[in-house]
């Protein structure tokens, strides 16, 4: 209520609110228009096409695997970044942030340089029978590259918010370092870990640039939409786009609600 009265009386806040409203409209209008321009039966009808279902499957599974791998390597890194002072820490943090700042097509090219058929590790990968180009493995790699920063940064923030002395107490009571991490630090940073996972997964699902360079096939949803748009125009791409928007926004909403509930629970407890 205090907020509402302030907005009426304070000219600056009024201007800021208008500016904000423009941006919110800018974001929501295209998305709503996409969903609304198709009738729902066409949108969900797209689900019946095998190539759409395959693309959704590829996207979601690859994003899930990429997120899991980011977790496996990123959470330990986040803990070290949150707890340990070491020389070159700033450089390490910059490296963590690189995937967010470089153009994603460049990320794709860079991954090809390392994992491609002519890449740095081509001999070793041939020997292991691994293939990245035009392969699910390549898609997972590209998705992981562009999304792992979210896991690391969010987990780091979560760990930093947990008082290190809680871990000290746990250890004085007989818990090992790992025990204290698992029974004290992780439960208290669940909401940050969940937020990191959602952000990473969403980023992975939406990735096109890096993915398409390393693997056009099997098609992920963005690739399929791009292809449909290229060959059949908007009429063919919109139903799939609308479908993806609905699915992603729903998943996002569910996880955000869960994360908010966790956060509220931990905050109430703290």
């Amino acid at each position, binding site marked *: 209520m205090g907020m509402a009265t302030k907005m009426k009386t304070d000219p600056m806040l009024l201007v800021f609110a208008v500016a904000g409203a423009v941006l919110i409209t800018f974001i929501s209008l295209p998305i709503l228009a996409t969903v609304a321009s198709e009738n729902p039966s066409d949108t969900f009808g797209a689900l019946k096409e095998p190539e759409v279902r395959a693309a959704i499957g590829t996207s979601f599974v690859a994003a899930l695997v990429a997120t899991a791998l980011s977790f496996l390597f990123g959470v330990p890194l986040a803990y070290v970044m949150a707890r340990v002072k070491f020389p070159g820490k700033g450089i390490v943090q910059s490296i963590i942030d690189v995937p967010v700042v470089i153009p994603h097509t460049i990320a794709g090219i860079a991954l090809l340089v390392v994992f491609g058929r002519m890449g740095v590790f081509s001999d070793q990968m041939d020997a292991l029978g691994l293939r990245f180009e035009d392969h699910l493995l390549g898609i997972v790699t590209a998705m992981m590259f562009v999304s792992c920063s979210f896991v690391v940064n969010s987990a780091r923030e979560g760990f930093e918010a947990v*008082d290190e*002395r*809680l871990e*000290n*107490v*746990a*250890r*004085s*009571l*007989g*818990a*090992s*370092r790992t*025990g204290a991490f698992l*029974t*004290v630090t992780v*439960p*208290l940073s669940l909401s940050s870990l969940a937020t990191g996972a959602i952000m990473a997964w969403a980023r992975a699902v939406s990735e096109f640039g890096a993915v398409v360079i390393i693997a056009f096939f099997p098609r992920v949803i963005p690739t399929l939409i791009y292809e449909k748009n290229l060959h059949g125009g908007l009429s063919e791409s919109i139903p799939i786009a609308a479908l993806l928007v609905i699915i992603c926004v729903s998943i996002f909403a569910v996880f955000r609600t869960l994360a908010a509930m966790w956060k509220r629970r*931990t905050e*109430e*407890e*703290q």
Partner: protein
Amino acid sequence: MISVDSLEYAAGRFSLLDISFSVGDGETLVVLGPTGAGKTVLLELIAGFRRPRSGHVSIGGNDVTSLPPEHRGVGFVYQDYLLFPHLSVFENIAYGLEARGARRAETRRSVESLSSQLGIVHLLDRRTRNLSGGEQQRIALARALITNPKAMLLDEPFAAVDPNTKERLMRETTRILASLGIPVVYVTHDQVEATEMADRIAVMNEGRIIQLDLPERVFSSPKTEFVASFVGTRNIYKGSARKENGRTVVEVQGVKLHSSVDIEGSVHVTVRPEDILISSQMISSSARNSLRGRITALKEKGPVVYLTADCGVDMTAAITRESFREFKLTVGDEVYLTFKATSVNLF
């Protein structure tokens, strides 16, 4: 027994230098010093949360310098208690037993019996939020004690307890700790707390122990100017208390004092200098102590003047600068020192 031998520690510009002491079983060593003296760091070094640059820590006769905290068997209570916020009170207290893989039934029995000793059984099902400082203190103590530690380290454990319950909790905590017969290191910046808890006091400043002594020695013969100014001037004596007509009378070096504390036997006696009234004539009252003495020293310190008089025992009173001027007091004058029985603290 805890022994700390030539312990040194450095982090940034902060350092601890040449810390050596030992604390016997059943003994409480109070580390007294201002904020930033390094008291908490010292406790954390003993507990193994930090690694020393050099020196040794041994607990129960074993050198634990290279052992991680979980293998030291030391109970630790932080100033702000740091109860695990995601666990219930029961789960907090049970944590140490569960970390050791105790059986569930056994854990429940131990938690309940210790909690009833500490009067916190009714809190076991609660979450940790909305608990009073005193309740949190008790829970933190129970959580540490349940593992049968070989030593207890307490970092200002009464800092967040309201003054009304503080006295009672301190007495209870002293009783519980004494019954365990383990060494206790207790950190505080409060001299009153220090005198009430300590068998010995280590005064600490800027990363060093300046004086390690019996409480009465720290107060009566401070080794350095810092100790003197930090502990202030205090009246602390050893005496023997007994009942006379249902009232407590304590005898200190032949001088009888009335006290309202219900205790008998060998005791420590303290009287706050601020509680003593100075007058040139005797003020008579059955509930009051009134001693005649000759002024041996006058020391100005800020807005107060510390007046020390030989009344059979040396006793120091704090008077305002105004009344000091008004009475025109000088060394050698005869004065009466009057204070209530409730001002004579025994422990």
